[in-house]
């Protein structure tokens, strides 16, 4: 249980990455960031990522497309994805769950909401891994 979990933040705007990192800085996670979907794929290949915070509105590949690609790859399909998006894009919420997102957080963040959701999905992933391993034994 003592191992450090890794959170990847994907957003094209550096300021947004800064804000998310600031909110999560006391939670004890290793934090990586990417400013595009393409960059995110590279990081995921080279690192053991436990959770992805994924902005929806990005040039080139948008968040939903990035999610769909990750879901198709067996190496990344089990990484929980929390979508981040602006307040007035409620139709995005439905789409977020459709493409396989684990959750959805609206910007600007309410600190405790973001922290709790990140913690929840990291814990859920850990517990699920233990549970699945047990069932296999």
């Amino acid at each position, binding site marked *: 249980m003592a191992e450090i979990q890794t959170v990847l933040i994907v957003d094209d705007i550096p300021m947004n990455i800064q804000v998310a990192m600031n909110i999560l800085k006391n939670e004890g996670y290793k934090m990586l960031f990417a400013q595009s979907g393409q960059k995110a794929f590279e990081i995921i290949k080279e690192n053991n990522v436990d959770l992805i915070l994924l902005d929806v509105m990005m040039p080139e590949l948008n968040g939903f497309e990035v999610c769909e690609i990750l879901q198709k790859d067996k190496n990344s399909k089990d990484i929980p994805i929390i979508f981040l998006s602006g307040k007035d894009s409620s139709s995005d*919420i*439905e789409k977020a*769950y*459709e493409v396989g*997102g*684990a*959750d*959805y957080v609206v910007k600007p963040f*309410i*600190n*405790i*909401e973001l922290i*709790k*959701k990140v913690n*929840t*999905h990291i*814990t*859920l992933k850990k*517990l*699920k891994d*233990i*549970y699945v391993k*047990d069932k296999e034994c």
Partner: protein
Amino acid sequence: MLGKQNILIIDDDIHNIQLAINILKENKSYNIIFTTSGEEALKRVHEYKFDLILLDIIMEPMDGFEVCKILKSDSFTCDIPIIFLTAKDDEQSISKGFDLGAVDYITKPFFINELVARVKTHVNMKVYEDSLKDKIELQYQLMLEQNKMAAMGEMIGNIAHQWKQPLSVITTVSSGIKAAKEVGMPIDETKEIESLDSILINAQHLSKTIDDFKDFFKQKDRILFKIKDVIEKTINLIDSTLRHNGIKIKKNIKDIEFMGLDNELIQVFINIINNSQDILTKLNQKSKIINIIVYEENNEAIVKISDNAGGIKDEIMPHIFEAYFTTKQSSNGTGIGLHMSKKIVEDHFKGTIEVKNIACNDGLKGVEFTIKLPIFQY
């Protein structure tokens, strides 16, 4: 995933309840129960074991925040995940909801797949957590069993020792009488009675030993017991090997009453004393002493068990309560004796156990275990 998960919906508007039920009933493993007030909900949570609660905020007279506060302060309900499901969508309320211990906060109107996904997240989490708890409990039970088996092995050695002396008395005395009868030697009547008495006493002693050992291995109910008796029983069980190895036990015991499984405490004492015995046996020093002191302080029983066997090396000291840690590679060390002892003291007696090296009166070094057991009013 085994079994059904119980979900409680609390909302004063029956239409909202209907809507949520319609969405969630698609998942056949959910068993959904609802109430239209906080007051009623607080009763229902004690009738079922709930895996998740969906909680509205704006309700009269008790609002959702109040219900959440009460549920989180009750040890029976504090582990049930709560998701607020409400039209209150201001930042302050959302923050307050999470602060009160809710796992999620969904604002109305919500999307169907949003509710489904978020409910599923927390139901799954609860199921995984519960299964992990079961697994830890199972591991603990296995370890307890393992320790008992190891103790049983040592006990058989103890029984062999304890029986040698009385068996030899019985054999000597009875064969003496038989031989005398066979050669027609006259036997003094009082001497004959004395001989028969000594056979009787020794046979009774054997029978009592069996009872002691039987008690030790039988799982009993919690009882009110005296700490002095527990220490006497412990010493009785291993007395003959202690004597055989030339080890002296010194006692200074204040009698204190406890409630619990006395066998478990015997197991703790045997584990500690056997460790001392293993080391002392290998040493050549003249005095081999195990000291047992019991006194009361600040409403706790303090049990100190120490020896003069040289103490524990500094690099080993921090590890001695770890599971499967043993220095007895060649012999029968299982590495769980002290680990189990710590678990028994902490989990079943809510106490603490510590160890340190000490300097003894005779100039030798030794180790001292201090067990503190809180005394409750029964």
